[in-house]
C-alpha cells in the first residue's frame, strides 16, 4: 500500500463520546470523517456516501457480513467494509478510509490520501 502524503494525527474526542456499534461525524482539516466504534475496534471512513453524494455514512447501521465488520449507508443501504472502505454490494465503488487510534482515552484521526 502506498501513501502519498502522511498528515498529522488530530485529536477528535474522548473515547466515551463514541457509542458502541454506532458512528459519529468529525471534521478533520475540513474533511468530514465518519468514526465507528465496534467490538472489532475503531474505524474511520469518509463521511460522504459515494452513491448519493450526501454526507451521511456516519449515521449507518454497523454490523458484519461473513465476519467482515460493515456499515450500511442509511440512504440506500449499500454495505461497506469498515476496514477497507470497499462497497460489498457495488463492485468498483469504495470510500476513502482514514487512520484512527485511541491514545490515553482520546480518539485520534490521521487523514489518508491513497494514490
Amino acid at each position, binding site marked *: 500500500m502506498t501513501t502519498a502524503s502522511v498528515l498529522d494525527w488530530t485529536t477528535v474526542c474522548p473515547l466515551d463520546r463514541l457509542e458502541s456499534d454506532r458512528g*459519529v461525524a*468529525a471534521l*478533520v482539516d*475540513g474533511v468530514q470523517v465518519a468514526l465507528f466504534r465496534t467490538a472489532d475496534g475503531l474505524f474511520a471512513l469518509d463521511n460522504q456516501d459515494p452513491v448519493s453524494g450526501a*454526507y451521511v455514512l456516519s*449515521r449507518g*447501521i454497523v454490523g458484519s457480513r461473513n465476519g467482515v465488520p460493515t456499515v450500511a449507508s442509511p440512504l440506500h443501504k449499500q454495505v461497506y467494509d469498515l476496514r477497507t472502505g470497499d462497497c460489498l454490494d457495488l463492485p468498483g465503488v469504495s470510500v476513502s478510509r482514514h487512520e484512527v487510534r485511541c491514545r490515553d482515552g482520546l480518539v485520534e484521526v490521521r487523514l489518508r490520501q491513497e494514490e
Partner: protein
Amino acid sequence: MNGGRLVVVGNGMVGQRFVEALRARDTEQRWQVTVLGEERRPAYDRVRLSAYFDGVSAEELNLHTPDDGVELRLGEAVTGLDRDRRVVTTAHGEYPYDALVLATGSYPFVPPVPGTDLPGVFVYRTLDDLAAIRAHAAGRRTGAVVGGGLLGLEAANALRLLGLATHVVEFAPRLMPVQVDTAGGAMLRRYVEELGVTTHLGVATTALRPGPDGTVRALELGDGTAVEADVVVVAAGIRPRDELARAAGLDLGPRGGVLVDAGCRTADERIWAVGECAAVDGVCHGLVAPGYAMAEVVADRLLGGAATFPGADTATKLKLLGVDVASFGDAHGTTEGCLDVTFTDPATRTYAKLVLSDDARTLLGGVLVGDATAYPTLRASVGGPLPGPPLALLAPADAGGGAGAAALPGTAQVCSCNAVTKDDVDAAIAGGCADVPALKACTRAGTSCGSCVPMLKQLLDAAGVRQSTALCEHFDASRQELFDIVRVRGIRTFSQLIAEHGRGRGCDICKPVVASILASLGSGYVLDGEQASLQDTNDHFLANLQRDGTYSVVPRIPGGEVSPEKLIVIGEVARDFNLYTKITGGQRIDLFGARVEQLPLIWRRLVDAGFESGHAYGKALRTVKSCVGDTWCRYGVQDSVGLAVALELRYRGLRAPHKLKSAVSGCARECAEARSKDFGVIATETGWNLYVGGNGGFRPRHAELFATDLSTQELISLVDRFLMYYVRTADRLQRTSAWIEAMDGGLDHLRAVLVEDSLGLCAELEAAMARHVGSYSDEWRDTLDDPERLRRFTSFVNAPDVPDPSISFEVVRGQPVPVRGGPPPTTAGPGTAGAGEPAAVGGRRQPVTLGMPEVRR
C-alpha cells in the same frame, strides 16, 4: 365480419366480461359497441349478491368500469329482434347491428302454485329483489324459502340474518339434491337445523295463502300441514332467458337456452350467445365460470380467432350457512360399475364420499360436507389416478388436504379459475419462482378464489424449494419466530439474542427488526442503551433522512384536526428555521431541511406548543386520516373525526413490521379513502364497517370488508386484535395486505382467529395492546428531557458549532430546497471513487419550467 356495429343485450356478469374481453383485444377499435341492459344499474357481482345483507353496498359489488368506446344504455330492455333488417328494438327505438351478442342470463323459475303473485313473495336474483326483501321483512317475524338447493339455502341464510324464523321447503328428499347425495344431505341438514332453520323435505308447496292485510301469511304443503311465513322467497331453479331468440325463430336447446355451437354462435352467423342464456351444444350452464369462458370465446371469434368453448367444470365449493360443501365430477356415482368410498364422522360432523372407477383406480367424483380441505387436490385428480389411499385423502383437516398434490398428473388443473395445470406450476417453479406470491404473479394460479394456494405450497415443497424464512445471515429464525423467542424467553437485548440464537454482529436487516420487536414488547424508550445502536437513522434521530442528509420533521396532528394556534406555531417554526413546508397526504404537515443539530431546537418549540412526535420516521402507525363527518357534513352519519382522533391517539407509537396507515370515513361516500389503508373504517347508519389489508404505494390494494355494523367498542377490540396479531406474526417489511394473502385461508382464517377466537389468542392480544396504550410516552418529550439523549444531535463530534458545510439550499417557488447536482466535493483529494461525484447515475431529471407561468412575488 371483423368489425362494425356490435350490440350486446344484457349487462350482467357475463355480458360485462365479454365487453371487457373484446375491448382488451380490439386495440384498433374495429367494433363500435352498444350495450343494452334491462336493470337500472350497471353489471354487479351477482355471485356475491348475498353480501348485500352483510352490509356490503351495491357500489362495492359493482363490476362495471366505464369505457369510452362503449355506449351503455341502462334500464332499456330489448323487446324485439329483427334478423332480416338486423335491428333490435327497445322502448326508445331501434339499434342496427352487424353482430349481436345475447347475454340475457336466466330468470328465476316460479312453479305454478296459487298465491305466488301475493305481496310478500319474492325471487332472489337481482339487487332490486334483495332490497325489496329487506324492506318487506322490516317488522315481520317469519319467513320461508321454496327450494332447498344452493340458491334456496343462500336465501334462507339471508332471511335468518334479517331476523326471521326461517323454514325451507324442498320437494326432493334432501337439501342441495343436485350437488350432494343422501348421506351428505343428512349431514347438511343437521348443520342447517342447528342454525335454527326448519327444513321440510320430500314435500311440495301446494299454495301460498294471504293474511287479512292481503300479503302472504302461510305456505300450504302437500302433506296437509301449513307453515307460517310473512316473507316468502321462491328459489326453485332458473330458466334461460331465450325469449328474444325464440321469437326471432332461432333454435333452442332441448331444455331451453339459445342453441349455439362450440364457438358460441347461433345458426345465424351474426348472432352469438354467452352466459346462462346460452345452450352450448344444447347444454346450459348455471355458473359464472363457464359463462366467462364463453365471453372469451366470442371476443376471440369477433376478431377473427377460432377459440372454442373448453367445456365446463361443474365442481362447486361453497360455504353455506357456515358449512363447507363441495361436490365435483360424478358426485352421484352414475358411471356404470363405479365404486364408492364414504367416510362419516359424527364427532367432527364431516361427511365425504369418493366415486371411483370399477377397478378403484380412477377418481370420478365426490362430495364433501363439513370439511372441504381436500377439495382442491381431489377436484384436480378427477379422471386421473388417485393421489393417495382413499381414506388418507378423506380424513379431515391436516391429513386430508395435504395428501398428494405432488402425485397429481401434470395435466391436472391446479387452479380451475385460471386454467393453470400442475405442469404450468412446475414449469414456473423450474423457471425460478420460489414462493407463492411469485407463482401467483407468474401463472395467475391462486389469484381468483384462492382455494388452490395450499396446493401451490405443496408443489413448491415437492419441488424441493425450501422457502427459507431466515431473516438474514445472522439469524435462521423468521421475524415471527424471533418475536416468540424474545417474548417467551423474556430476552431484553440484541446482544443476548444474537449470542443465544444467532451469529456474527448483526446488520441493517436484523437490527431494526429486533429493535421493533423489543419496542413492541414494551422495552421502553427506543433509544436507550444498546437499543440505540439497532435503529435505522430515522429512528435514531427521530426524524426522516432526506436525500441531501437533512431531516424532515412531522408533528402528530391526530385525525388531521388542528387549532389555528397550533397551525401558527408550525408556521413560525418553519419560518424561523427556514424549513420547506408541505402538506402530506396523511393530513399533516412535513417540514424539510432540518440539520441534525437543529432537531432538538425545533422540537423544543413544537413540544412546548403541545405537539408530539408523529412517528413519520418509524415502522409504526402513521396517521388516521378522516373526512369531516357528521359534525359538519350534510351526508355524514357518524363522527368520523372523533373516531380518527381516538384511534390515532390509541395506536400512536405502535411499532410494526411495516408502516401502518388508517382512515375513517363518515359515510359510504368514503372521502377519507379508508379502503386504501391497512385498516379503514367506514361509517354506516348504525355503526362502523371495518376494512383491512389496503394500501397505496407501489402495489395498491383495496382493503377488504372484515366486519360490519360494529359499535365503537367492538371496533376498537377488533382493531386491537388485528394490529397486535399483525405485529406479532408478520414478516419483516410485510404489509398487512401481503400478510393476509400469505395466510393459509386468507381473510377467512384471519376472521376465525380474530372474531371467533379460533386460536384462543384474543384476550392476550387485547391485553398486549392495553399495555402498549398504557405505557405510551412521547419520544421527543423524553429526548428533550435528557441531556444524555440530546448528545447525539451534533453535526461534528469535535466541532459541534459548525453546521454541515455540504448542506445548502436554493429557492424554488419561494421555498428552500436542496441545491441540485449534489453537495460540493470534499477536499479529500483525487483518487477515490465518489469524492464529490455521485457514483450511481440515475435517470435524467426533468426540469419543470416549460409553459409554466412565472410566479411573481
